[in-house]
């Protein structure tokens, strides 16, 4: 390492310039607290993703929040039946803004192989979904890929999203009351 010419030494602590959005987005993206709504087989693959081989803790997602008010990301892994759909909607409504939804597995995305009288054919019939991860069950690498896409969305999201007309009309189309009126 040689000497760097023209290096100015500043006395004091220095400062960094950025936009508020970028700082907030970076903080949000690196500390997403997921709510694992794991019902069936995809839940076991989710648990394997959480384990030490495909660590989720390196993304800051080690603290699983089972309380909706404290969670940012609703991870729906597994089949949702019609009996469970109102519960899912209630959990989504109880989450505080900002919130995202990741649908893991074929059953949550579209009903999967269970085209039957009791299975909800996709959770996007009751709540808005941000990222879909297909697979039956998806490998942990695929789940991590889905989570990285959620991080991309979080990093580029406006702080005023919840007040925008587009978001409000999306929630209205699902008959979900927007609490941030």
């Amino acid at each position, binding site marked *: 390492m040689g000497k760097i010419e023209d290096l100015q030494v500043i006395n004091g602590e220095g400062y960094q310039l950025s936009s508020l959005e970028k700082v907030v987005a970076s903080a949000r993206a690196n500390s997403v607290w997921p709510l694992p*709504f794991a*019902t*069936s*087989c995809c839940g*076991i*693959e989710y*648990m*394997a993703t959480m*384990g*030490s*081989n495909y660590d989720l803790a390196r993304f800051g997602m080690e603290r*699983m929040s*089972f309380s909706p008010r404290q969670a940012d990301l609703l991870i729906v892994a*597994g*089949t949702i*039946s019609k*009996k*469970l759909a109102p*519960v899912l909607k209630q*959990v989504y409504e109880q989450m505080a803004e900002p919130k995202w939804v990741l649908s893991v597995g074929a059953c949550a995305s579209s009903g999967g*192989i*269970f085209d*039957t*009288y*009791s*299975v909800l054919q996709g959770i996007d019939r009751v709540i808005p979904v941000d990222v879909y991860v297909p697979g*039956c*069950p998806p*490998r942990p690498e695929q789940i991590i890929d889905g989570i990285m896409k959620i991080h991309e969305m979080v990093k580029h999201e406006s702080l005023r999203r919840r007040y925008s007309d587009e978001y409000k009309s999306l929630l209205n189309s699902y008959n979900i009351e927007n609490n941030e009126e």
Partner: protein
Amino acid sequence: MSNWMEEKLHDSGFVEKSSETIDGDIATLNLGPTHPATHGIFQNVLKVDGEKILSSEQTVGYIHRAFEKLAERRPYNQITPITDRLNYCSSPINNMGWEMTVEKLIGAEIPKRVEYMRVIIMELARIADHLVCNSVIGVDTGALTGFTYVFQEREKIYELYEEVCGARLTTNIGRIGGFERDFSPTFYKKLDNFLKTFPKVFNEFDSLLSRNRIFMDRTIGAGPISAQRALDYSFVGPNLRAAGVDYDVRVMNPYSSYEDFDFIVPVGTQGDTYDRFQVRQEEIRQSLRIIEQAYKNLPEGSYKADIPEFYLPPKEEVYNNMEALIYHFKIVMGETPIPAGEVYHSVEGGNGELGYYLISDGGRSPYRLQFRRPCFIYYQAYPEMITGQNISDAVLTLSSMNVIAGELDA
């Protein structure tokens, strides 16, 4: 407390009011359907007096996926992926149980090598299932370390499944008549490695919990059930063995050459959570013994039965031989000559006797297929097991019973 404070409290009426509302009130507590401690989706509404549970009521059916109706639509070899999703922690056992049921119906002769291969895979699945259950009992008492150790070992078992069938969790392993291909050299290498390294890690996991004073104090006496009540409720599997009855389908009605192997069936005394934990730990050790015996004595032979009407012929023959082409066409279209009849076959799954009651009318799909699911039947006893216990004991009892939601609701 100083007199001044006491006077203030009494003046405000706080002390009288709070003692009125707290004493003698029965609260209703909703445990589920989404709850961090219920591993799966089932709802328990508990009536509690303080921390003691007075009564409870269950609601199940939150993942009812209509397997039995689905099976009436699909040809026999397409039902194997559905059976995966019953007890998804040990799906090879479900798959092989189904294949053995169909082989019983058609009266197929299975080579000895296939049976030993099946035993190896089924015992690996049993180890995987018991590891999940025991580590989750640890998590519910607050011991998260065991969970991380154990899931690393499960990854090794997943790699073994991948060598055989390509999938990790919902395996769809094997075919009616055997396996799709023989075990590869990599499989033997990985199995050797597993048999060498797993016992050390397992002993470490065991030393964390088995004789741990805190764990023992929490689990001994939590959720007990007597042998007579367990038999009344049609308990099977580790839950029944923990209560003191040594019923194991592998010993009573041996299938797939289990009579050739030497293993003991562990039995508990009180039927509480500690007994269930220890029964499963011992079963993991016995499963390792069985795998070593099967691996050492693996006989030479074919990896599939000689039933060309039900087992896809190799591609070279399909392209060159007229007969093989016709068999291939019929099997893929589902027009296999399954005879009419009814058969009941059961295997020892991770939770006990998993039974398949199959009625066939000679058509391309079953007329009626009923799964005898152990979880569904023994979960009925849960209210009886937790009455009089604390809420935290109720949570522990639930996780020690190893209730898998896929098997509960089907």
